[in-house]
């Protein structure tokens, strides 16, 4: 793709999100979301592979449906209350419709079905954008909406997402699908706490972006998209392979690693709100996700040579990817837990 085109696409991608961030008017927020969607479509379809085209179409349909619903619901709200402001959403039908539309946009269960196949059709770089940057704009709206929407709806979305995200990933062998399910599960953690402490949602979002970026960049460096090829990656980059296993466990939320911090703070908030049952269900759902992360660790790091392997040795091409971002993200993925007091201060 020509550098001019890619510059325009990437800047529109940024612009769309920024527009949604800054808007207080539903129409403007909707426009931001649409610009954002339209900008990523050419990036998704740039390799004219049938899978990529299929993923682009699916993504377009899901996002367009969600955006149309948002437009529809905000119009209803404006019709009945005469108010376009995001903070003045009061019509119950409109709030529920918009919440569901935003859930569809980010891929929360039960409207997550587009997400794994779409991720599977993308390159790892575009997949990284999809899993991180594309969540920001809808979440900005969800956080603003949360006080007006029905609490039970958000809790249901959260619980369903963590369980379906854990359950769905168990049966996968494709890394991008596993990461899509991991994303669904993390979104569940984000949405469950939005109504009680939106700062924590932001914290989970930030830590999730750090951890998942490290994982995506690692897989990109290893040029692997299947568990099978992952098993041979230690031959290319042994140190990073060892680190990546820990990064996956961090995604799973095991204690001395960064991933535990958001889970801990969310559980604390949920118990403070008198919801120990919800909190227990959330923690136990983490076991489901942890199972497939652990399987990846087994394949990648814990069964390395000498052993029998079922895949051919990969090409050892010259690495052109910059490693500084990966190194930074990896360190942040593993070692941020001692900063929990800081996170707590910032989120109070």
């Amino acid at each position, binding site marked *: 793709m020509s550098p001019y085109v890619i510059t325009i696409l990437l800047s529109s991608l940024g612009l769309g999100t920024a527009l949604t961030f800054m808007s207080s008017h539903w129409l403007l927020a909707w426009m931001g979301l649409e610009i954002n969607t339209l900008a990523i479509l050419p990036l998704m379809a740039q390799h004219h592979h049938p899978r990529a085209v299929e993923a682009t179409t699916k993504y377009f349909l899901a996002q367009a449906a969600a955006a149309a619903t948002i437009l529809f619901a905000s119009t209803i709200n404006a019709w009945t209350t005469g108010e376009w402001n995001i903070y003045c959403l009061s019509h119950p039908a409109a709030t529920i419709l918009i919440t569901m539309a935003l859930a569809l946009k980010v891929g929360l269960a039960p409207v997550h079905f587009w997400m794994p196949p779409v991720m599977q059709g993308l390159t790892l770089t575009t997949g990284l954008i999809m899993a991180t940057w594309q969540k920001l704009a809808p979440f900005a709206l969800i956080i603003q909406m949360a006080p007006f929407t029905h609490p039970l709806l958000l809790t249901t979305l959260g619980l369903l997402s963590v369980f379906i995200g854990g359950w769905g990933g168990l049966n996968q062998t494709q890394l991008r699908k596993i990461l899509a399910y991991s994303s669904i599960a993390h979104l569940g953690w984000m949405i469950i706490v939005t109504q009680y402490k939106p700062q924590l949602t932001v914290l989970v979002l930030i830590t999730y972006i750090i951890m998942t970026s490290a994982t995506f960049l690692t897989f990109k460096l290893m040029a692997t998209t299947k568990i099978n090829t992952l098993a041979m990656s230690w031959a290319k980059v042994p140190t990073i392979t*060892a680190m990546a296993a*820990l990064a996956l*466990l961090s995604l799973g939320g*095991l*204690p*001395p*690693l960064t991933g*535990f911090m958001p889970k*801990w703070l969310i*559980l*604390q908030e949920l*118990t*403070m709100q008198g919801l*120990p049952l919800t*909190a*227990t269900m959330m*923690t*136990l759902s*983490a*076991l489901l996700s*942890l*199972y497939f992360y*652990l399987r990846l660790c*087994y394949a990648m*790091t*814990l*069964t*390395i040579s000498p052993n029998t392997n079922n895949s051919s040795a990969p090409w050892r091409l010259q690495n052109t990817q910059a490693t500084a971002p990966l190194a930074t993200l990896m360190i942040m993925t593993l070692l941020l*837990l001692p900063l929990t007091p800081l996170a707590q201060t910032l989120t109070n």
Partner: protein
Amino acid sequence: MLKILIPTIMLFPTIWLSPSKWVWTTTTLQSLIIALVSLSWINWSSETGWASSNLYMGTDPLSTPLLVLTCWLLPLMILASQNHIKAEPIARQRNYITLLASLQTFLIMAFGATEIIMFYIMFEATLIPTLIIITRWGNQAVRLSAGTYFLFYTLAGSLPLLVALLLLHQNTGSLSMLIIQYSQPMALSSWGDKIWWAGCLIAFLVKMPLYGVHLWLPKAHVEAPVAGSMVLATILLKLGGYGMMRMMLMLDPLSKDMVYPVIALALWGVLMTGSICLRQTDLKSLIAYSSVSHMGLVAGGILIQTPWGFTGALVLMIAHGLVSSALFCLANTTYERTHSRTMILARGMQIIFPLTAVWWFLSNLANLALPPLPNLMGELVIITALFNWSPWTLILTGAGTLITAAYSLYLFLMSQRGPLPQHIINLQPFHTREHLLMILHLLPVALLITKPEIMWGWWY
């Protein structure tokens, strides 16, 4: 506290920066010095019950013996794994020692923590190094399922514990061990409180392990390399016992009625796992089940919540830690020579390794609680406390000691006595290193009985 913790953390540069020829020597030396310095904790002169405390960590009579045991174990683990890791590339050797040292760091912080959430995090943090030790350095393909069992049994128990602790934190406003026993006793009566009670203990009961949730332990022991087995038997199981002792103080009014099924299961487990030992064919599995059996007794001692019960539990934990670790080392020496854990393939070893047969003899006697060893002291105190609680328990505990004696004898006779099998023709002689390892295990056991106050906990 820091004078132990910082040298332990400084083990990492030692491991990675010392020349490859000296890696094992320097790390053993440094960890042994740490272990010797840690003995100064035993010299007790505090009136408040807490010593060497800083903002986050401190020692008290309950945690001190376990801390010293942790520090003592690291040089022994390094000594024990030297032989089978030496064949690996140097980077992997360093990696392995790094894992052992990181485990030690986490364990010191776990036993030293004065805040229960800190203890919880460090308790969980030990999972990752142990998991890697089992699944990366184990020998067979089954090690992966052993690792999964280990991780998921522990986490399924300990994640509800986190929620239970956060609830406790919300009720009392603090989880500091320094003050929590002085907080208002809570009025606990509802069903929710009972579930909370269970949530507080299940994590530790799984870790102990209680009979019924013990299946992860034999698997993990069988598949782990020797250092993994040693640290599991010596310290990681004791994390469960230690955590239970800390939690029991806060669960007081409810525990009186709630503990009955747990005590029943624990004592029944002593019999059952002892009987399982009697028909084991696998050397490491036998020792692992013997650990479950001993820890059942420890769990019983803790759950009746009398000073004697606690003291006995602590004494037995320390003694069992050293002795089961010694047995695992001995099993590993056999394994490294015959490359099999099957007992029937390595019989009659006394004829070729007479001195090692002495070590086997002493370790087995210690395991079956021969007087005057501290194992006997621990078992006797627990049995007495249980008898005082309910005379009927003597049926279970008495039969339990009998079965323990029986399987220890079985283990000794099977591995050491009798004729040498025909296929054993060329075994490597024992290294001085291995004899030293056994001395370093058994000497503390013998010396501890001369001054048992240091492992009596709060009550002496």
